């Protein structure tokens, strides 16, 4: 990886160019349903289990932190409200992002990268088929879909985990926990989280595709591409998350 400014600019330019190409190829027919369904199934199969397993302790940690905090402040009745809010707004998009980038993005990048070095991509272009339309667009859409669904799953599992730890382990009252659910959190929180997940999915897939399609230098090149894709995706996702959260607070009026 080179770090000269011109190289950096060229890379980000190429990344945006690919994003634009994907947008342009989006309405082109025929849509690759087969590839889309295969990819969605594949990304879902590599992310669902780890997502569920990660979100249980994630929800638990939040519940434990908030449980002890609310007890110190004497606001136990808000424990449920706060942990739902934290899981829904931040924890689930972040967990989704980590898994989509870490499990889905890497697989996409490795797949496209090995196709590139085996000249499969060249062969496809020579056969008159645009790899962006045939391969990248279905992957981007599949990743976005799975990210949105995964976000729902992580929210549910996270909230359940939080409930379990707060009520069973910290002796919270189930009634108070459940009753306070909607005192802070509101429906737009869920929509915003879903929107974040969609954007994260798109970013992860486009970065993975970009790095994969530009892999060079044999098998080692594919490894490097995957490595760079993960690092770049994580950086982009956390920045995007910050910006979207900041914008959300400006746009949607808060409760309480």
């Amino acid at each position, binding site marked *: 990886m080179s770090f000269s400014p011109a190289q950096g600019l060229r890379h980000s330019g190429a990344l945006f160019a690919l994003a634009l190409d994907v947008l342009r190829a989006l309405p082109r027919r025929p849509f690759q349903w087969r590839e889309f369904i295969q990819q969605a199934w594949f990304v879902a199969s590599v992310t669902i289990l780890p997502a569920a397993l990660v979100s249980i302790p994630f929800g638990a940690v939040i519940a434990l932190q908030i449980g002890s905090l609310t007890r110190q402040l004497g606001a136990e009745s808000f424990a449920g409200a706060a942990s739902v809010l934290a899981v829904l707004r931040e924890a689930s998009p972040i967990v989704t992002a980590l898994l989509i980038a870490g499990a889905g993005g890497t697989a996409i990048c490795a797949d496209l990268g*090995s*196709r590139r070095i*085996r*000249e*499969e991509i*060249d*062969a*496809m*272009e*020579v*056969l*008159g*088929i*645009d790899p962006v339309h*045939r391969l990248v667009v279905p992957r981007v859409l599949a990743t976005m879909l799975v990210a949105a669904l995964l976000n729902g799953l992580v929210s549910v599992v996270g909230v359940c985990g939080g409930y379990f730890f707060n009520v069973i382990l910290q002796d919270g009252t189930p009634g108070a926990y459940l009753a306070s659910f909607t005192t802070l959190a509101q429906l737009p929180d869920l929509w915003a989280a879903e929107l974040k997940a969609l954007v994260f999915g798109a970013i992860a897939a486009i970065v993975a595709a970009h790095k994969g399609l530009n892999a060079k230098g044999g098998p080692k090149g594919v490894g490097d591409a995957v490595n760079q894709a993960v690092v770049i995706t994580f950086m982009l996702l956390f920045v995007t998350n910050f910006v979207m959260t900041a914008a959300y607070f400006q746009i949607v009026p808060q409760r309480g």
Partner: protein
Amino acid sequence: MGVEIRVEGLTKSFGRQVIWQDVSLTLPAGEISVMLGPSGTGKSVFLKTLVGLLRPDRGSITIEGRDVTRLRERELYEVRKLFGVLFQDGALFGSMSLYDNIAFPLREHTRRPESEIRRIVLEKMDMVGLIGAEEKLPGEISGGMRKRAGLARALVLEPEIILFDEPDSGLDPVRVAYLNQLIVDLNAQTGATFLIVTHDIASARQVPDNIGLLFRRELVMFGPRDTLLASGEPVVKQFLHGRMQGPIGMAEEKDAAQVEQELAELDAGEHRGPRGGKGASGEGVSPRLLPSPGIVRPPRWEAIAEREAEVWSREGVKGA
């Protein structure tokens, strides 16, 4: 059938490294041309530039009045439908069976019913001798089979131009012979324009109408087979003989003084070191490979066969 490709002043470099410069040649419509050259002279790069996978720095490539180097992406995909390309390792799609690989272009570009696709695919698989391997994955078969499957896939859309990237590499001599015969037969049947990139002299000697030689960042020669095979140009001679003495070195180039000394040695009749590798049996014209007996010969091949018969009967008389 067949399309002419006109290349003018083509130059390509990667960063500061010039691959070749000012390459100008015309691949005549319907004829077979061979591009020779030592390893690492950018023959594959040349092939990829022709199909627009790489953009040259300067120059033009004209196909049917369109300049490939200046086309927009969308138009480029249209022009590429004229091409069939056999990549070095076949470049098959690893996740698909051979059958699906070969059916892929038909399924993507045509709306033919599956029964017709099956007929075409099996016909092409039969042509390259792959019947019975339909359900195999590219990872499960030998390099030679991958290459033949790649050829079948390049042929299904009935291209006007077929490019071969080292069709003989990784094949045994018998399969090379079959492949050469197949190339000639295909040319007689389809009338497409062929370009074969190789360093197998034996094939270059028998198969093409035209031969070109790339060396030291330029096109040393391009012309009819007879002209090149009889040429006195030192690089061409060294290549045709496959010997160490001459301008081509292990690391592509030698210093001028050494080349001069070695050429002087050769003039004095002093040969040293091995030679004759890869079918490099020296200069001189040899008989051309003709289409198999069962194949209907178009006028072009009739003329070639007649001329060959005439030349070799005369030679035969001289020899006797």
